[in-house]
């Protein structure tokens, strides 16, 4: 037999999309302007070649060149070293020594730069603005500088203050990949759970009246904007990145388009609120920083609530109860959240966003991870190949959720 007779859909066009392809997808799946800009940039740069790993000295020269344009005073950079921990960003730590009017001041910093492409195409500008806005509300690193379009770095980058802490107990063997399934152990678990909940409540009840953002669009209360933008973003990415079809995804998309929830309250949505994305002090058990704001947006709290309760982020405890992010049983989680925020948790909206979130994880792990690794676009292609295993879990979760609503 020969494969020449097969009428295969040619998904390889996505390796080098034409302007017509890009415009078609933009028109088909409208979303927030900054999301559109980010996805369009991704596609327009897709055929430029693979990611090239930079040497430490070369990266430091980028930092120095960038800071020369941002700091109007003597400065120097020292102690440069690579960081790991994130799948999606190239990260380097350094110490910045600055002299203003007084003596030299030193501060530890972290650069976060995009690879040529990642499994979630996101905006550094949004991250910069959001983290700046929530200073004082939740513990976050201070954002200092941003290179929005990769003028000084090969790709968009931002510089934060360094915050110390761990994402999981030093002794644990769990949570090897991005903190997924971390077992904090009893004692630590209870101490972190209260803070985990109170910071989530603070974000969702954040007073947006005085906030000004250039890269975030506020969805209108009483409309389906918030959910529709996210669905369109996910579906557009699925079209842009996948290698083949998964009929379940078409079923999911159609169900979601017919069940878009109406927004009742606009809050700050972290977008990836889970274990592995906060640092804490192992001696005091205080959360020292919330990280990874790249999926952050203004929208529906149920998006965060449904995300945080995804099965891959938690584990079962010693009594066989499932713990959300390894911290708190799911029913307790919702009850205590409502007490802390005064906002209702709508089970139907949770269901919608659980479906959307599972859908989005399948997009990232099955479609985007494949395309990025195929084209050699990131510094972590080997990790992206491995997350195919997560796609099966997320797709199965999506399937289970759909079976309950169809």
């Amino acid at each position, binding site marked *: 037999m020969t*494969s020449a007779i097969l009428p295969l859909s040619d998904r390889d066009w996505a390796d080098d999309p034409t302007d017509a392809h890009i415009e078609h997808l933009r028109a088909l799946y409208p979303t927030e302007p900054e999301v559109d800009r980010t996805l369009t940039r991704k596609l327009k740069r897709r055929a430029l070649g693979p990611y090239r790993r930079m040497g430490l000295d070369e990266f430091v020269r980028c930092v120095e060149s960038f800071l020369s344009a941002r700091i109007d005073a003597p400065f120097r950079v020292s102690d440069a070293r690579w960081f790991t921990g994130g799948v999606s960003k190239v990260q380097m730590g350094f110490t910045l020594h600055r002299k203003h009017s007084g003596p030299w001041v030193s501060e530890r910093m972290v650069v976060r730069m995009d690879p040529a492409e990642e499994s979630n195409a996101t905006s550094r500008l949004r991250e910069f603005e959001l983290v700046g806005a929530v200073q004082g509300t939740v513990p976050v690193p201070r954002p200092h500088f941003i290179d929005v379009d990769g003028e000084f770095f090969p790709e968009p980058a931002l510089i934060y203050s360094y915050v110390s802490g761990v994402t999981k107990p030093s002794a644990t063997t769990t949570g090897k990949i991005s903190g997924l399934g971390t077992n904090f152990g009893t004692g630590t678990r209870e101490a972190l759970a209260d803070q985990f909940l109170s910071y989530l409540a603070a974000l969702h009840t954040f007073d947006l009246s005085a906030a000004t953002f250039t890269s975030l669009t506020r969805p209108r209360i009483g409309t389906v904007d918030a959910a529709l933008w996210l669905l369109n973003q996910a579906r557009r990415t699925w079209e842009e990145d996948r290698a083949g079809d998964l009929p379940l995804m078409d079923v999911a998309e159609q169900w979601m388009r017919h069940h878009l929830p109406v927004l009742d309250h606009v809050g700050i949505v972290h977008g990836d609120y889970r274990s592995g994305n906060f640092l804490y002090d192992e001696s005091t058990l205080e959360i020292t920083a919330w990280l990874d704001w790249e999926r952050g947006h203004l929208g529906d709290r149920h998006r965060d609530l449904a995300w945080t309760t995804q099965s891959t982020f938690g584990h079962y405890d010693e009594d066989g109860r499932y713990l959300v992010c390894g911290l708190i049983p799911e029913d307790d989680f919702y009850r205590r959240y409502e007490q802390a925020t005064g906002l209702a948790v709508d089970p139907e909206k949770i269901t919608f966003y659980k479906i959307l979130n599972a859908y989005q994880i399948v997009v990232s792990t099955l479609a985007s991870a494949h395309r990025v690794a195929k084209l050699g676009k990131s510094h972590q292609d080997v990790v992206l190949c491995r997350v195919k295993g997560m796609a099966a879990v997320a797709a*199965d979760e999506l399937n289970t959720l759909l079976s309950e609503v169809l």
Partner: protein
Amino acid sequence: MDHSRNTLGALRKSLLDAVAPAVDQSDPLACEQLPLVVDYLEFLRTRIYRIHERSRFELGEYLRMAEGLLMRLSPSATAATGTLAKQIDAGRTARESASTGTNELMQWGTALAATVSTVLQDESLPDDARHALSRWVVESSRPLLDFQRSWYAPFGFEADRGRLRSIDEYL
């Protein structure tokens, strides 16, 4: 006789015994990625001679999905119906032939999935037909997804791996 499994074991040992001690410990990316590469080689060693069986199994599941879809569609419902019927016949023949190669099995599975997706996206379908098709796709996806979870279980994304069946039970 193919010796790829043996070779993969040797590659893994080489990385662990010879390469790992030479990796610069101040390069965290290298230190992080080497164990992942080693781990993937071990995964591949356990799977390499099962990929053909997997491809055949998955094609069989997509055939079942497509046949169920066709049964729920009226003959004149969509332009894709005729394509689907032809692909089912050809895919079944390919699956039953001992001479069908692994790549070809995968291609037939991909083609069937694409056609099923095309049918599902047909906006001219009546709501009740769409609902019936959606329910069938969800139901028929179950064995495929269960299998894939078992296949990738060594990667460690399962909250409770002990609940999964062995891939031997599917293949």
